[in-house]
């Protein structure tokens, strides 16, 4: 989402696909989501970066699957059938991120989005778009474009 989009969204809302990881809820802008796939076999790629789980075959196309737990500093867990692969578009790249489950699409007004206070390192601060309070929960909004650095995206493209 560009700054212009953000300013225009002050009154308008944006829609976010929410997913769960380790009991926490995250959101990705719906414009960055291509589709959501059920859990399928992920073929590991020898020599791939550690944040790459492997590749899947999506209608004849190879899609690299990123280990979201590792990127978020969460405890590693063996995927189960409840997991989903969210196929995202980051610039001209297409990749998949593995999540515990996908919840719903919600509407968020820009005025509801708070800047996330810094508690971690710069890496996480880069891709956290903001936080939204919903009831008792805080929803963490993710900018998938910035989940990886430019060099890392280039590495993903060559997997």
């Amino acid at each position: 989402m560009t700054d212009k989009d953000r300013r225009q969204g002050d009154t308008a809302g944006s829609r976010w696909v929410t997913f769960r990881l380790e009991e926490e809820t995250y959101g990705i802008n719906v414009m960055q989501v291509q589709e959501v796939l059920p859990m399928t076999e992920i073929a590991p790629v020898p020599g791939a970066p550690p944040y790459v789980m492997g590749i899947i075959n999506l209608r004849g196309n190879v899609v690299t699957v990123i280990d979201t737990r590792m990127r978020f500093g969460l405890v590693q867990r063996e995927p189960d059938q409840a997991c989903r692969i969210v196929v995202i578009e980051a610039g001209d790249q297409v990749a998949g991120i593995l999540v515990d489950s996908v919840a719903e699409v919600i509407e968020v007004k820009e005025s509801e989005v708070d800047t996330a206070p810094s508690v971690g390192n710069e890496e996480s601060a880069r891709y956290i778009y903001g936080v939204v309070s919903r009831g008792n929960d805080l929803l963490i909004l993710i900018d998938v474009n910035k989940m990886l650095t430019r060099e890392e995206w280039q590495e993903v493209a060559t997997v």
Partner: protein
Amino acid sequence: MSVEEKLLAPQQALWNYLDALLREIPPSLPETDEIQDWDPAALEPAAPTVEAPPRPVVERPRIIRRQPVVAPAPRPVPEVPEPIAEQAVAPPPAEPPAALQPEWGQAEFQALLFSVGGLTLAVPLVTLNSVVPWPEHGVTPMPNQPAWCFGLLHYRERNVRVVDTGTLVIPPDREELRPTEPPEHILIVGDGSWGLACSAIGNVVRLAPDDVRWRRGGGRRPWLAGTVLGHLCALLDTDAFARMLADAGRAGARS
């Protein structure tokens, strides 16, 4: 060991720990705050060569007091055990560093006692924003947050960063003091940016400046304002705590 000895032993251990927190004097400096063998009273001409043995009446005060440095004798040879080291100190030799007394500690103030595991701490009410129970749904951990951070709490339109106080305050060699149960309360301090997780809330006490042994310069624990003498607990400087956490966050960003 008698019952009294059994009761005194852990208290003495705790006092020793708290006392050690305030005795973080760099090796280059002599322990001038502790009365050494030299004493102004020993500089009487009658015994100029008296080196060390303290007179029976000489007390070793536990509280650091300024010692009159200027000796009336023409040869004020204090026979200081480490005169060279003493010269390394600021110009008035043997002057202990001044107490770092925060503004709120200049007059009588109130403080809330709280516990983190087996450790009791105190926070001045003037810097305490709110006390909230630990939310049933917990706080929201953020990606790649440091080990000392529990996550974010949305409270009064703010996203409060909740920290694991035990991890930050309890030394690594005091595992027995660490909490064994989840936190029960969050003390939101300062402008509401930070929350300190704690095990239990105690009483509010009224303290005079003299009731606190204030921290002196140096030391590795900038969050420590001093030690509350009557309650044997550490008194937090929440502003320094917040600065330390902010710096830790920035340091993590550079790592």
